[in-house]
């Protein structure tokens, strides 16, 4: 069609993105998020959803649901995940103008955190238990027949509800690869289209885990920033004074579609997913191997999958969590792959925090907007560059640039690393 290729160099269908939807602590919707992100605003605030007494970290990037009352801690994480996912999928579908309402012509991939029964539910069940001793035996007896709880905390529940609502085809796949989850969801969708399983797919990453136990668990791993006094300045990726990541909620959805199908129906093409690369680490549960091999391997695999050379990458959307360890390792990976002249790299997490299972999808969506507007979002809170990390981190202010290809990095606990290469629409 018009001489523009619709296959990649491997002979696979080129995969376009024809719709995106985003929600983060910066707001609901693509344009609200992009405006705030490129203005360098932070979405990090003090937690007001539940009491924060005795917590080392009392800040987060929270997403308040539209009708959520103040102090709405009783909304369980899986319900938050589902509500945010519904919103971003609906936004992405409206952009893509694909399928009839409730009938999407392809599969669904949902990146989300593992879910379970939370404390408010446990306490309520314990109060209803007959044996007066709120042990598990009593809880189990009290929970029998609670289909509402079952469907909320089953791992397949959220994706199944989403699949039914949007009428996606086949079995929806829910997945977790820790902080790389959102990127893995996109990769699965891309692969489905490349192998000709469908012309289109929805990939969504969503996380709504800011509740006491999850916060404390991350805190116990010493992963979180404790800079509670100035929430907006706590997330400091690549800064010498960085002290951890800030937990955050959010979601993003991408409508993936073969370029051929998108062009045939005259759909707007936001960009292409040119390559996906992954590599697992075998070193440690929460740290990368100091040799950086897995990170480097994931980046190189993504470039090779896209058929590009390091010099073709104009900008990197960092994993950039702001933990001392991650940023050091990411720099090592950048140097190994890009040599003496690495492209600019910035961290969305400086503004939205670490959206965990959503991060890979949210940051891929922002990478597509970077391509659309030829505008690099900044790394804010960059005051004292780390001399060990001599990178152009687009400090503090967004910057115009010529961007043809973006590399988006996602590196997870448990050694699961996924990188995506996104490109401008052709023609």
């Amino acid at each position, binding site marked *: 069609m018009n001489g523009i290729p619709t296959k990649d160099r491997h002979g696979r269908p080129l995969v376009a993105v024809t719709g995106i939807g985003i929600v983060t602590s910066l707001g609901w919707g693509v344009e609200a998020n992009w405006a705030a992100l490129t203005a360098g605003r932070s979405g990090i605030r003090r937690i007001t959803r*539940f*009491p924060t*007494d*005795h917590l080392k970290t009392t800040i987060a990037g929270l997403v308040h649901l539209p009708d959520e009352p103040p102090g709405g*801690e009783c909304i369980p994480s899986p319900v938050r995940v589902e509500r945010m996912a519904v919103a971003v999928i609906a936004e992405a579908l409206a952009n893509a103008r694909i399928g009839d309402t409730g009938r999407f012509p392809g599969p669904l991939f949902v990146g989300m955190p*593992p879910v*379970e*029964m939370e*404390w408010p539910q*446990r*306490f309520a069940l*314990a109060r209803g238990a007959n044996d007066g001793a*709120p*042990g*598990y035996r009593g*809880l*189990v*007896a009290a*929970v029998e027949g*609670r*289909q509402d*709880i*079952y*469907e909320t*905390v*089953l*791992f*397949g529940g959220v994706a*199944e509800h989403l699949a*039914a609502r949007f009428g996606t085809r*086949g*079995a*929806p*796949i*829910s*997945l*977790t*690869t*820790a902080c790389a989850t959102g990127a*893995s969801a996109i990769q*699965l969708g891309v*692969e489905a289209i490349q*192998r000709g399983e469908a012309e289109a797919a929805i990939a969504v990453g969503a996380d709504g885990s800011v509740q*006491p136990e999850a916060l*404390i*668990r991350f805190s*116990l*791993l010493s992963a979180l920033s404790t800079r509670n006094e100035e929430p907006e300045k706590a997330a400091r990726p690549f800064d010498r004074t960085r002290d951890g990541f800030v937990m955050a909620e959010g979601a993003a959805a991408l409508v993936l579609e073969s370029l051929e199908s998108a062009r045939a129906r005259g759909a707007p093409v936001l960009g292409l997913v040119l390559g996906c690369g*992954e590599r*697992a*680490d*075998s070193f*440690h*549960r*929460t740290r990368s191997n100091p040799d950086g091999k897995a990170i480097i391997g994931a980046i190189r695999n993504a470039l090779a999958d896209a058929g590009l050379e390091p010099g073709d990458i104009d900008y990197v959307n960092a994993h950039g969590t702001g933990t001392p360890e991650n940023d050091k390792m990411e720099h090592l990976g950048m140097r190994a792959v890009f040599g003496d002249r690495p492209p600019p790299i910035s961290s969305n997490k400086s503004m939205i925090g670490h959206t965990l299972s959503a991060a890979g999808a949210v940051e891929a969506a922002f990478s597509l907007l970077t391509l659309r507007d030829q505008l690099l979002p900044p790394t804010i809170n960059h005051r004292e560059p780390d001399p060990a990390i001599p990178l152009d981190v687009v400090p503090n202010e967004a910057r115009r640039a010529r961007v043809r290809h973006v590399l988006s990095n996602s590196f*997870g*606990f*448990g*050694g*699961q690393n996924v990188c995506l290469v996104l490109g401008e629409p052709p023609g």
Partner: protein
Amino acid sequence: MRREVWITGIGLVTSLGEGAEAHWAALSAPGTRPVLDETSFAPFPVHPLPALDLDRQIPKKGDQRQMEPWQRLGTYAAGLAIDDAQARDLVADMHLVVAAGGGERDVAVDEAIAAELANAPPEVAGPRLNERLAADLRPTLFLAQLSNLLAGNISIVHGVTGSSRTFMGEEQAAADAVRIAHLRLAEGRGEIALVGGAYVAQRWDMLLLYAAGGALWHGPWAPISARAARGGGFVGGGMAAFLVLETAEHARARGAKGLARLAGVATDVAHRREGGGSAAVARALWDRLAPRGGAGRLGVVSGAIGVEPALAEERAFLAGLAAGALVRTPGTLLGHGVEASFPAHLALGALALARGGFYPPLDPGLDTPEAGGRVDRVLVTGFGQWRGEALALLEPAA
């Protein structure tokens, strides 16, 4: 490109023992009885896990300490599969897809906190909950709870680093894990992959989840065939099953034996969405897997777990299969291993083809009465407790 994929290694642990040999011996002999614990989690019977010599597959005590039983079990079985495939030197580029549930909670901490705070006023309970969790939760327990860290531990302990993905979603996740691993090898994304899951039935936190859906069988153990009359339900079975999938070309080149050819995996989720209709969907999946019905005698390793209406739907589907198909229901003896069941049943199917035999009736109330004998192909079924249909077809590895 569409390459042939073989199963070249099996790592299997159930209440009947560990390893392919032990399972073939136990299940191919008539009259094997289930191993049961009917008291510890009463009124719910469970099939307990056998004692495992963890040092054999997880040599570092430090690694063992970083895990709880669920991750240890899965990591152990993954190692058995790698050994069975003689693939220790292939792990660096081996791809990994795990179907995972949640890891163990600290039951004692949960019970103590609930005892103190369930009836406390919210202004007291909130701050005190923070204080107790911060003091009582062990940092390592978080990592042992994380679903993706079964895969993480398999990478760390066995060095499997080609890629790592963890699917969540009970029975369906396991079938899709096998489906995706199979498709990726078939289309040229790698040569060898490890896929599977693990389930520890002896856990109150898991019973809490499945009891909510009314999915558990109450009272003394009964074979699956006898459960429908009392509303059905599954009996949890401790289980881990990992399969090494490998392209035939790659296996041949290194002289590895194929236990079976994985001809295809097909999944869908009509059951919940349509409120029934699983049988029709399964028939469509079967037509996709075996468009001409196929030749020779068909063995069926049924994934029946005893939960209704999934069981009735499956029976309707099986009734329409080619006459002469030999149906076997290992779930009666092994229980339900949720994310581990589908790969375990694939392992049993592959074993039968590799040994040139089949199993005797395992649940006489459901299974074709005819004795074992040889089958030419094996169909493995999976009908989820809440949703989902899955079929896989195995053929002899030529």
